[in-house]
């Protein structure tokens, strides 16, 4: 299996790289299109979704990443990453269109300001995982093709998977929680994808 790429334009990409290092998984920062070649999957980290989207255009990554997702490359987004993978964004800025792929509607900053950020133990499939929600988005609506994998007890959908795409509202990487990444690594192993441009 090729290395797992971590989009390194802005945000907490180092924490994702550290989790992959801890799991002994080969990994690579992706800042330029040629760095996509040969990866077996891509992680889109937390950060500001508006900033990451703009920088992806500037650095020539927007179209290739869209195409690779469409071609079946496993991709995993946390927080801003989930926003960028959603087909529909609520409360985005004018003209904000992410990479898409997940047939969901995501609401940005759904809990409010930073004062409403929190940490909690939450379900992820059958596990209970540690998670930080930082000005986090939620999934307002998921189509039938999308499986809900995490939900708060108050009902909000905070984790979804659809085929090769995994998106969560929270940050396991901030709290050293590696099981969500382990799940994604299994997705990459099964898909056996080799990114070509």
């Amino acid at each position: 299996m090729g290395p797992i790429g971590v989009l390194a334009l802005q945000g907490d990409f180092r924490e994702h790289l550290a989790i992959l290092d801890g799991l002994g998984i080969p990994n690579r920062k992706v800042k330029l299109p040629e760095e996509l070649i040969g990866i077996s999957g891509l992680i889109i980290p937390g950060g500001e979704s508006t900033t990451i989207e703009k920088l992806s255009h500037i650095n020539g990554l927007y179209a290739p990443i869209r195409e690779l997702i469409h071609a079946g490359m496993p991709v995993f987004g946390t927080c801003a990453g989930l926003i960028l993978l959603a087909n529909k964004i609520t409360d985005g800025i004018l003209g904000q269109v992410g990479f898409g792929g997940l047939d969901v509607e995501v609401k940005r900053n759904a809990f409010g300001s930073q004062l409403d950020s929190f940490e909690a133990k939450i379900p992820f499939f059958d596990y209970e995982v540690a998670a930080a929600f930082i000005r986090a988005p939620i999934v307002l609506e998921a189509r039938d093709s999308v499986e809900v994998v995490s939900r708060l007890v108050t009902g909000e959908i905070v984790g979804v998977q659809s085929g090769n795409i995994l998106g969560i509202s929270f940050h396991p990487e901030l709290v050293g929680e590696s099981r969500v990444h382990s799940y994604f690594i299994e997705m990459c192993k099964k898909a056996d994808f080799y990114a070509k441009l």
Partner: protein
Amino acid sequence: MTTDNQRSSSTPLVKRGLAEMLKGGVIMDVVTADQAKIAEDAGAVAVMALERVPADIRAQGGVARMSDPDLIDAIIDSVSIPVMAKARIGHFVEAQILQSLKVDYIDESEVLSPADYVNHIDKWGFEVPFVCGATNLGEALRRITEGAAMIRSKGEAGTGDVSEATKHIRTILGQIRALAAKADDELFVAAKELQAPYELVKEVAKTGKLPVVLFTAGGVATPADAAMMMQLGADGVFVGSGIFKSGNPEARAAAIVKATTNFDNPDVLAEVSRGLGEAMVGINVADLPAPHRLAERGW
């Protein structure tokens, strides 16, 4: 999926966590909602709401205070990215007001006139996170001890002269490297010399980094300035007067965002440095008489 999800807000992890998300980004000073929108459209990761940019505070003189809540509300309403605002050093009531306005971060800032020349704000007492300035490692660790969830090197705000920013980020990171090289039994006296708690000094010596995100600030005016700060090891950049005191704020803001991400790519830096119009005029820090140096506020 039936597990309990007791939420804990305003923990150190949650407070420091937002700064983690800002890494690799540019935080821009804005004085109006329109400027905030320009900053967001240019790719800023956050904006700093204030009444006058440091260059104007410097030019006009007088006491500089927290901004009018109407202005802060207007800026919060105009953008979707985090909004920070400044309180005077030691002015815990300005901080209480900013928390009530639900800003995302408070900057206890030497750019405003200090309200207390002895004590900084006890930041543990607040739910909202704080960023504080520092010129050296001891100062940074004292601010973290008081509860700061993010540090920015001070530089010399409102000058467009990057030399002080360079000095402060080099000093902080150099002192961290020196600490990491020390033997365990040398850390007690290191803590004494840094005037910082031993436990925190020991942690920095062991991890080789601050326990919070470290941005740089004060004098960054060009894409090259921002990239230099990133190459020196800053996690991100604050740009104050450098954008809206320049000839073409939209273009300069976008160029500084591009340069901060592509800080290690001179070809990109050359490209984004072209045709930006006039940079802010600038003042050489060496020409500033000591009482007008903002970095010396705070201790």
